[in-house]
């Protein structure tokens, strides 16, 4: 036993690993490195914390102490009795008006709601191209379904509208082998003729009591109107913008001039001016008694406005492509349409995605401008009927907070989607 004592101690197994010092791990390390890494940063952190605390101590009681179930502002203030608190009851009382406008029949709210749900289904195959391509059939039918759901009335209107497109396409595809231009214009003529005939037949076939009660354009309002305007105008302005951008680069002088004049004129005029023209001035030019649907007029104006901007964004994408790409397409013996469709546009559009999304988000928010021409979109509803009612005059923060929330959700989703799309389309090596 004793001899063992003279032998110096030799450790046979390694020491267990000790945890790193408290200051070098976990939350403490993160705090030290990111928030308190020097006297300046420490100072800034403390100041920010004070700022956040101030902000939260002012808004949180207001938010959490909110009243949700009164019928008027006076009642709400009575319950609050001088304490801080929001009167969110304006939202519970008027949510339907904020979403659908004040004249859309309330027992029909399921129709725009269903149209909105279907919109997601219809947009999915366009937005996410991993989905089965057969879903695109539904996307093609969607505009007619949505029109029927939201406006109602006789089912023959959207059916004949759809038939017109089908007839036009059939004529086009029959003639396209000979000459593109002949086929294109014959297709348009055939579609026009079938719409004209369809108009007569619709009058004959329309029943007195349609399955879905007809709702006038005048009765559309609230966030629904913003969604209609935003969706329709963005989806229309994209193809028109592409055509305009290509036209501007064209060698044919007349087409080029038309595109340049259109783009420059529209970009040189404020949107609000175009909306005033749509609302007020057009009434002077149309013969008395003609009722040209106001929403349609506004859609045309906003689409024109947006497509001019999108055309410039896409022209930027086209200009960014190296000249070699164009020459490569020519050297393969592709004609103009093929070269554009297969080589130029896929690359140009990819470059343009951030710009297009930027224009779309801006356009969607610009739809609130229609409140100035006395249409009751979300902002129009707030500024007009709701704030002018005896019950709710004086409520601002709650209403505009709600409006910002709705717009933020939509715009943020668009921007997230575009980032996903950019990553997905990334083909270069970084």
């Amino acid at each position, binding site marked *: 036993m004793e001899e063992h004592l003279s032998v110096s101690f030799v450790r046979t197994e390694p020491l267990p690993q000790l945890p790193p010092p408290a200051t070098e791990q976990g939350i403490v390390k993160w705090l030290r490195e990111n928030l308190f890494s020097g006297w300046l940063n420490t100072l800034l952190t403390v100041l920010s914390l004070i700022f956040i605390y101030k902000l939260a101590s002012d808004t949180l009681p207001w938010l959490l102490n909110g009243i949700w179930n009164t019928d008027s502002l006076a009642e709400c203030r009575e319950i609050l009795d001088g304490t801080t608190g929001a009167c969110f009851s304006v939202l519970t009382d008027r949510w339907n008006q904020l979403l659908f406008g004040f004249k859309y029949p309330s027992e029909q709210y399921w129709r725009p709601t269903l149209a909105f749900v279907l919109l997601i289904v219809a947009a999915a195959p366009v937005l996410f191209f991993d989905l089965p391509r057969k879903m695109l059939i539904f996307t093609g039918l969607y505009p007619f379904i949505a029109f029927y759901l939201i406006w109602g009335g006789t089912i023959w209107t959207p059916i004949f509208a759809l038939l017109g497109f089908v007839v036009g396409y059939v004529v086009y595809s029959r003639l396209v082998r000979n000459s593109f231009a002949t086929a294109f*214009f014959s297709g348009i003529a055939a579609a026009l003729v079938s719409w004209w005939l369809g108009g007569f037949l619709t009058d004959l076939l329309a029943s007195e009591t349609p399955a879905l009660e007809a709702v006038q354009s005048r009765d559309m309002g609230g966030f629904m109107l913003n969604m209609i305007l935003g969706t329709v105008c963005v989806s229309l302005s994209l193809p028109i913008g592409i055509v305009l951008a290509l036209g501007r680069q064209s060698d044919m002088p007349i087409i080029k001039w038309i595109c340049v004049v259109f783009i420059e004129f529209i970009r040189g005029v404020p949107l609000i001016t175009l909306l005033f023209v749509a609302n007020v001035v057009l009434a002077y030019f149309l013969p008395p008694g003609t009722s040209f649907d106001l929403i349609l007029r506004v859609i045309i104006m906003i689409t024109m406005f947006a497509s001019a901007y999108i055309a410039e964004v896409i022209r930027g994408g086209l200009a960014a492509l190296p000249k070699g790409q164009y020459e490569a397409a020519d050297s393969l013996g592709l004609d103009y349409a093929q070269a554009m469709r297969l080589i130029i546009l896929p690359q140009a559009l990819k470059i343009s995605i951030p710009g297009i999304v930027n224009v779309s988000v801006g356009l969607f928010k610009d739809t609130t401008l229609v409140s100035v021409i006395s249409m*009751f979109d979300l902002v*129009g509803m707030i500024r*007009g009927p709701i704030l*002018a*009612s005896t019950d709710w005059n004086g409520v601002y923060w709650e209403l505009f907070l709600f409006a910002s929330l709705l717009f933020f959700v939509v715009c943020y989703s668009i921007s997230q989607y575009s980032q996903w799309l950019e990553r997905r389309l990334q083909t270069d090596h970084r």
Partner: protein
Amino acid sequence: MKKSVFLGALTVAGLAAGAAAAGTMDDVKARGTLNCGVTTGLVGFAAPDSNGEWNGFDVAVCRAVAAAVLGDASAVEFVPTTGKTRFTALASGEIDMLARNTTWTFSRDVDLKFEFVGVNYYDGQGFMIPKELGVSSAKELDGATVCIQTGTTTELNLADFFRSNNISYEPVPIETNAEAQQQYLAGACDVYTTDASGLAATRATFENPGDHVLLPEIISKEPLGPLVRHGDNEWGDVVRWTLNALISAEELGVTSTNIDEMAAGTDNPEINRLLGTEGTLGEMLGLDAEWAMRAIKTNGNYGEIFAKNIGEDTPIGLARGLNAQWTDGGLLYSPPFR
């Protein structure tokens, strides 16, 4: 390269600009609804309620006209207009009449070619000020900052008032009434000035209305009334006399509750003429004998409409003041039904 030029069959509508069709009444009857221009929303005067039904002091005029002409007070298509779009909407024929707290001025009547058929509310520009400032007259406002809506007659009236009293002020320009409320409450200006009815309505929405006072000075005349297009006098007569019927009904003591009784015949020949049991006034207007009765039945007489929408029992709480009958010292004076 083969190019085909196609000329689209453009249906260019003839530039029949503003050809105000004569015979608005025939149009209205054929259409079956009255297109009535109202504001997009002004407390007490016109606003849709939570069921989407339009209500208010101006709206009542539209409904009375619809009841008189079409026999149905709900046969009104309300067309909301802003201060900027109201006149073009009327001139282009989009609406048949405008009942939108519009001030009757020379240039609107003569130059813009409209016809004001009467006055349904006598307004005037006033001042609102926090009580704690201790000001009791607008003439003590020297050096005050004043919140004022740009591009309105109130802006010009204000400049005139301060100049003629030889005192100075600093204007704080704002766009809408809603913005003005916030600016005023936040203390961006000492005084808020606009039409007195608007001030009263605004003050009613404050958390502590008692902390603010309206100064006694009224510095302008703002007679608000419904208007129609120039050149269709038959239609103008219908709207004018419908408004007069509401005013006369109050003077004569005809209310929505006792009207059925009175329609059976009374000792007062003017009431009988008004309600169509005597004489042929309705026929002269191109309407039936009971036109005025229907108009009054809709929302009651002028006094009832006032009390229900903007009177002292409502949150807006306006006193009759100038809008009392002439017999009570006000300015309401309907020509006789004879």
